């Protein structure tokens, strides 16, 4: 069965179906992270021992580098979509490859941060701050892994759709990009909330 409105715009919404779908999904994601941010504020304001949990010992330079990497990956992601709009598959592959490279770079730095914590005997169960830190960054990390799986598919086997349905493939990259920019957006708020404030 042919899925309707994956290229042409649906008359009543003015959108192709996948675009409305991803925005509804992102709305649910806002609620997921919103609930956890809310829990963070509640714990922080009500825990009398918060100042002793070592929040100031987090590695700010590494987190700053990770922020720059994720911002860069957002730009390369949107450039991969622009490349398809310009009918340039080579540039698309280059930008999508760079996006994947940045994604792996982000995870490697996160791994370094996590192992440094574990080496010092700091676990999610150690105190309230570390519970919040590992939950929020861990969930965000899972989203990065999800993005790598989707983008990796479009970088590899999924790219063959370009030959048969180029417009549909371009829409797919736009949708994957919306998800990826959301992951970047979450980190933009996580970074100051956990590391700086």
């Amino acid at each position, binding site marked *: 069965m042919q899925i309707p409105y994956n290229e042409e715009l649906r008359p009543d919404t003015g959108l192709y179906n996948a675009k409305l779908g991803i925005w509804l999904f992102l709305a649910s994601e806002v609620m997921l992270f919103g609930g956890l941010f*809310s829990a963070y504020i509640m714990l922080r304001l009500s825990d009398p021992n918060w100042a002793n949990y070592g929040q100031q010992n987090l590695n700010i330079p590494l987190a700053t580098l990770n922020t*720059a990497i994720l911002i860069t990956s957002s*730009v390369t992601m949107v450039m991969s979509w*622009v490349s398809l709009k310009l009918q340039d598959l080579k540039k698309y592959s280059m930008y999508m490859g760079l996006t994947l490279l940045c994604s792996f770079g982000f995870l490697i730095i996160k791994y370094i941060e996590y192992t440094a914590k574990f080496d010092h005997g700091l676990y999610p169960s150690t105190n309230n701050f570390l519970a919040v830190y590992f939950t929020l960054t861990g969930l965000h990390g899972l989203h990065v892994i999800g993005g790598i799986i989707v983008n990796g598919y479009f970088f590899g086997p999924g790219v063959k759709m370009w030959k048969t349905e180029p417009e549909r493939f371009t829409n797919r990259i736009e949708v994957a990009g919306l998800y990826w920019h959301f992951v*970047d957006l979450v980190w933009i*708020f996580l*970074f*100051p909330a956990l590391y700086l404030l």
Partner: protein
Amino acid sequence: MSNDMNHHIKVYRNVFIGLLIFTVLTVGASYFDFSYVWIGVTVGLAIAFIKGYLVAANFMHLNNEKSLIYIVLGFTLIFFLVLFFMPTLWHNDEMHSPEHIPMQNGEVYEQVKHNDHHGEEH
């Protein structure tokens, strides 16, 4: 199409530079000694919101999107705000938070007794 895309590319490049500058500003502001904590928090969050706006408006194309998307996001914002400000229920103790909270070190935190706005003692 090509001219339109070239314009997009210029915008994306400028947004990228802006995001990097604001990241440096966020980190710099965290080292700055503000007189009050709330000023530092406000500055940090304000920069985060500007960065968030740059990403959402440009990379996610929200500065030029169909009205249905704005409606979906409007509802999302309303529910998000409800969720976000739920902790204030705790603040007013309407949810009857416990007076004795076990802590990690095995001790028990006892809530300081005080008169609430009804003039009754907890």
